[in-house]
């Protein structure tokens, strides 16, 4: 009993450490005061102000566009990579696909910047951000899809061929439906990573294009305004929803299965 009480205290402290700051951001986004100091009264005016801010809306639109496009592309490429890694079980290749997942973001950001500018001589902007996001998302999709395939009985694919399905129809009718939850989870993960990303985007965004995290960063250079709290709250809500959805579709990859 004593042991368990201690554990509970430790756990609560840890969770408090993680979530109290987030809760304060949410709370003050509804606070009718310019200062993040004391609670005055409930308001939604910071949200209204957000919607009237053209820079903010542009940044949100950019973020959504990049997130949708990059996660779609990363999902297609990552799924193919996951299937290939499972089927041919190469030795070195998995590390190469998965490295961007564990690489420090700052390193990836710097190297992508150098690559885009020095090697490709690309004008930085939407396209470079998109390419960077695809790069770090592919690995996640590949991991999830491969994990999904690894839990499957190989014989069912042989059975499909045996029962008259061509390789393509075997993929369409058996493989794809079975890995679909993994693909959806991978897509949602990529989307979350993309919409939240600051570090890599910071390096490859160039001057003209801003995403939501970059916009927030530029706003808090002055002060943490209630408007920042409001946009952070919205971003948090979106991220949490996507993670919850991802966990629902691929429980085996994101949490212990029951």
């Amino acid at each position: 009993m004593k042991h368990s009480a201690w554990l509970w205290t430790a756990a609560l402290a840890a969770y408090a450490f993680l979530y109290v700051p987030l809760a304060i951001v949410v709370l003050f986004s509804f606070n009718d005061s310019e200062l993040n100091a004391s609670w005055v009264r409930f308001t939604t005016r910071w949200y209204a102000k957000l919607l009237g801010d053209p820079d903010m809306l542009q940044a949100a639109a950019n973020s959504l566009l990049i997130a949708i496009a990059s996660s779609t592309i990363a999902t297609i490429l990552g799924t193919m990579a996951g299937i290939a890694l499972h089927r041919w079980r190469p030795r070195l290749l998995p590390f190469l696909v998965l490295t961007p997942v564990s690489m420090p973001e700052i390193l990836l950001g710097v190297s992508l910047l150098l690559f885009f500018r020095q090697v490709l001589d690309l004008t930085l902007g939407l396209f470079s951000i998109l390419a960077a996001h695809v790069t770090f998302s592919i690995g996640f999709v590949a991991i999830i899809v491969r994990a999904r395939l690894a839990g499957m009985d190989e014989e069912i694919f042989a059975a499909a061929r045996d029962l008259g399905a061509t390789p393509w129809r075997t993929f369409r009718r058996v493989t794809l439906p079975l890995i679909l939850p993994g693909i959806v989870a991978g897509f949602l993960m990529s989307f979350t990573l993309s919409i939240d990303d600051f570090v890599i985007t910071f390096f490859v965004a160039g001057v003209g294009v801003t995403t939501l995290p970059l916009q927030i960063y530029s706003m808090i250079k002055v002060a943490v305004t209630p408007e920042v709290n409001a946009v952070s709250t919205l971003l948090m809500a979106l991220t949490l929803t996507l993670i919850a959805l991802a966990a629902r579709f691929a429980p085996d990859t994101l949490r212990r299965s029951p």
Partner: protein
Amino acid sequence: MALLEIRNVTRRFGDLSAVLGVSLAIEAGEFFTLLGPSGCGKTTILRMIAGFDAPDEGELFLDGRPLAGIPPEQRPVHTVFQNYALFPHLTVAGNIAFPLEMAGFARDDIRRRTGEALELVHLEDKGGAYPHALSGGQKQRVALARGLVNKPRLLLLDEPLGALDAKLRERMQGELIALQREVGITFVFVTHAQQEALALSHRIAVMNAGRVEQLDVPEVLYSTPKNRFVADFIGSINLIEGEVTAASRHELQLVAPGLGTIAAPAHAPVAPGTRGALALRPEHLRIAAPEARAGLKNHFTGTVAEYLFLGDVTVYKVRLDNGLLIEALATNAGSGKAYFHEIGDRVSIEWRHDAGIFLDR
């Protein structure tokens, strides 16, 4: 013309020869079994028939046409896999409909045939269930229905009863025989369980180390095995080593060290001086107290070393006076006590002069 002909097929994996010069002809309507220990090449042959593997040498013909180069999906051959390999995302009906859909049957046709197949395996009420909700026996039946539904020329069964418990396995054996008789489709069955093979098959090819040791109907394999491997692999066997001292057309005389002269039947011409073993089934041996001997031609004495009471029969392991341990089987049809000889009892072991078979290989 045979339905399936395997002509001189060899398949190697690196240095290992999985199949070595096998030739077989399987007739239409047959329940044909490939029997052998694991690694004997039986599954490799099955995979080559299904199209998942190809021979290094030799050819396979189905209805006289060579199978080389034809992918699995284009062969009129279906497989019942060892672990059933049901599609987990499809219902029972969806699983059974799969081959029909792949073959391009019309919607109504698919529904009707799926219904018939469900009926065939007594799963009419399980059409909407998913595989994970089925018992082992039910999964087995779905796999059979799925394999049979669009009437393949051949149904391959890869140890399909291996995953079932003993009682259920026995029942599924009966169902398999009935099913094969009902649909008339040729079955090629792969197993390492000799009793299963004997119970189910019209013909059995006994395989060992990539070769067919003997191919015949179960009764012949059991009563006149060609060599020690077949004799030992099918059923229980006692091998009494000896040398032939006299041979006529029907009878042999051999001398076993420490036992003396034994009379045995001659199934094939054997020259005196040939060394080999007399193979005797446990049920050919009569075990009795020394004073209750029946007066059969071959008789020796020994001591009961061990016995296994199996209910209907008791298997005695008797150490003969020359040290040889042999197995004798006694039925427990008598009333009262089910077994009659205790460990350490002196007993007489006797058998008829025409029992067993002399094996020189």
